[in-house]
């Protein structure tokens, strides 16, 4: 963390960046009116504010989400702190020509797992659980540590998040394989049970680094593709559309599921599509910023066994 603080100070002092998007400690109000200290995104433009920076288990957020927001477009050069998993989202945005690499100063950190939980839980940084994305990521990396490739980022800091490794969650939700095995009607009943809880607060859409459309098709009223009131029909359509618009793009950062106030297993849909895309087209999103996006390319011999 010392290294991170020093580097960020240097960057701001020398005017290399105008804004740093990083993780920091800040006071936020909770339901009973008192304030708690929590870890979250902070935006720093002055050298004096750098002391608030942290890099610990609470840094689960994907900060890439802010890069496409209008408020941050006015800064000429933005410094951003990313975990190896978040970095993939930058690649997808570059594939889709949404951000200019020259405008970014990327600080890549190493990571071996973060903590996901409610604010009350994370304030003590001990009682939450490890999100699904970290479990998958740890399994895929040697020694369970993911590191940024130094050539990809402007500055790689090989420091792991502070704090104890959180425990893995107890399996309440079925996995993709389990869902694929049950009958079609049971599956429909499962999703209906989940989708009917949805409030249509669109937190999943707001937090997604890849949902950057200025007007979402789900907000349109003429024509109205997706029913807008929070009832089961509209919710069902919304979540299918959301999952499909992320097909071949989603980098499995898990933010949608983390912010969902109703606890819908949204990453299940995304992970299912990631799996199918890999199976059908041997494509993984977020690995190569120069590659054309999945839906903008084709192979003459793509699978068409399902077509009459």
């Amino acid at each position: 963390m010392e290294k991170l603080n020093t580097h960020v100070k240097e960057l701001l002092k020398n005017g290399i960046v105008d804004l740093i998007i990083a993780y920091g400690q800040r006071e936020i109000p909770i339901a009973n009116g008192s304030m708690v200290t929590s870890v979250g995104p902070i935006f720093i433009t002055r050298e004096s504010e750098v002391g608030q920076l942290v890099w610990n288990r609470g840094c689960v957020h994907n900060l890439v989400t802010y890069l496409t927001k209008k408020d941050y477009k006015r800064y000429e050069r933005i410094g951003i702190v990313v975990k190896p998993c978040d970095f993939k989202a930058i690649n997808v945005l570059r594939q889709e020509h949404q951000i200019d690499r020259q405008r970014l100063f990327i600080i890549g950190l190493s990571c071996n797992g973060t903590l996901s939980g409610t604010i009350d839980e994370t304030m003590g940084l001990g009682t939450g659980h490890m999100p699904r994305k970290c479990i998958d990521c740890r399994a895929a990396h040697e020694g369970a540590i993911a590191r940024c490739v130094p050539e990809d980022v402007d500055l790689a800091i090989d420091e792991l998040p502070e704090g104890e490794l959180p425990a893995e969650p107890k399996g309440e939700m079925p996995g993709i394989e389990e869902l694929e095995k049950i009958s079609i009607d049971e599956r429909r009943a499962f999703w209906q049970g989940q989708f009917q809880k949805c409030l249509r607060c669109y937190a999943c859409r707001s937090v997604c680094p890849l949902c950057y459309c200025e007007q979402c098709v789900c907000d349109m009223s003429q024509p109205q593709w997706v029913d807008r009131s929070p009832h089961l029909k509209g919710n069902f359509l919304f979540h299918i559309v959301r999952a499909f618009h992320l097909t071949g793009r989603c980098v499995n950062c898990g933010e949608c599921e983390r912010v969902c106030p109703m606890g819908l297993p949204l990453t299940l849909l995304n992970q299912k599509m990631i799996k199918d895309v890999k199976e059908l087209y041997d494509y993984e999103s977020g690995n190569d910023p120069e590659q054309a996006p999945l839906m903008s390319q084709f192979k003459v011999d793509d699978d068409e066994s399902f077509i009459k």
Partner: protein
Amino acid sequence: MKKTLDQANISLKDQHGKDTAWKPSIVAFLCNWCSYAGADLAGTSRLKYNPNIRLIRVPCSGKVDPLFILRAFADGADGVLVSGCHPGDCHYATGNYFARRKFALIKRLLEFCGIDARRIHFSWVSAAEGGKWSRVVNEVVEAVHQAGPFPGFDVMQDPEKG
């Protein structure tokens, strides 16, 4: 109760002899250049096929956004068929290649969400394939008939009863 088409057509007459059997309504998106002309050929050739299908002409199968498919189901369709030119024959050269990826993935996603795969069909029908068109329609109608009426996204169904 699930019946095959033949059984359904001879049964379920009401007291006035009117046929009350459930007939699926299927929305078909046809590309202007091949499949629509193929369906036209089926008509001018006096080929017979099941009438439970409603055709919508689109410029290219690449124009068919998966939203169209979802909206058709939301508005009460029991099944959807999308038909375009054979690969390599697209009027716009590559439209159907891009469409093919979208179709493969939306079919899998809908299946994962519990929409019966028998309701979602894709086909390549050229302008010369009137016979294939009538065969495809019969197959699709049969498959949707087996799947039964689409209950809608918002009707909770007891998985025990299917």
